């Protein structure tokens, strides 16, 4: 790829990067900031991009580093509130009867690759993450997208391990339901 082609590719990637940054940070201004920093870093470092990976993969890698830098610097970006003591989550509790049985059987999702190879699946996935309450969305993205270990996340956020575990559970259950409703169970597929 020559320099001009990389410039064009970076400009095209911007909206997608912003969408993901917003999912993680839940704040438009901060998302704009980290994406700008990411694109500048990519432009400055474009000689180092030897085409060894997809340009998208390379730039998303830079974005992850920039977001983690923000977290490390501390400050407002890291605001994740732990759950209040004994708080329930109706959306998750509604999935089970009082005796712990599921209210409805989960659907068979079929071959993972069939979904993971489709752009539209990732569209639905992002829409579902967006629907999570902010704190659940942030903590889930930290764990599953930034791939930070859970004990480190809890420690950085000052949330107890138990609280953190409950948040992860709720985020995963809500996301599973949303995907099942909007992708795996959708008749349009």
């Amino acid at each position, binding site marked *: 790829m020559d320099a001009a082609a990389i410039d064009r590719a970076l400009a095209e990637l911007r909206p997608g990067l912003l969408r*993901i940054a917003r999912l993680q940070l839940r704040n438009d201004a901060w998302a704009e900031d980290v994406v700008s920093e990411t694109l500048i870093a990519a432009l400055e470092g474009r000689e180092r991009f030897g085409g060894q990976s997809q340009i998208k993969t390379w730039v998303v890698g830079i974005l992850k580093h920039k977001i983690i830098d923000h977290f490390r610097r501390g400050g407002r970006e890291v605001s994740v509130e732990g759950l209040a003591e004994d708080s329930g989550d109706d959306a998750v509790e509604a999935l089970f009867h009082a005796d712990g049985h599921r209210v409805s059987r989960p659907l068979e999702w079929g071959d*993972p690759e069939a979904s993971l190879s489709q752009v539209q699946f990732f569209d639905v996935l992002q829409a579902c993450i967006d629907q999570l309450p902010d704190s659940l969305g942030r903590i889930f993205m930290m764990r599953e997208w930034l791939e930070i270990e859970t004990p480190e996340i809890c420690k950085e956020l000052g949330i107890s391990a138990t609280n953190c575990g409950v948040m992860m559970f709720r985020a995963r259950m809500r996301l599973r339901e949303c995907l099942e409703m909007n992708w795996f169970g959708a008749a349009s597929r």
Partner: protein
Amino acid sequence: MKNGWIRVSCNHAHELLSERMDKPLPRDRAWRLWLHLRFCDACSRVERQLELMRSAMRRLGS
């Protein structure tokens, strides 16, 4: 299934599945989960679905 020293409910099995994605389970809980999954298709499905969600998240954006 109701919770007992050996049996776990689906609700609790879901919690253990989530917990296991963040850290290795202590042996007794790992064993109870394993036993539950052997006999419960619904929870086995959820187990695979959580794995799929993880793979998807790792690919998000790339």
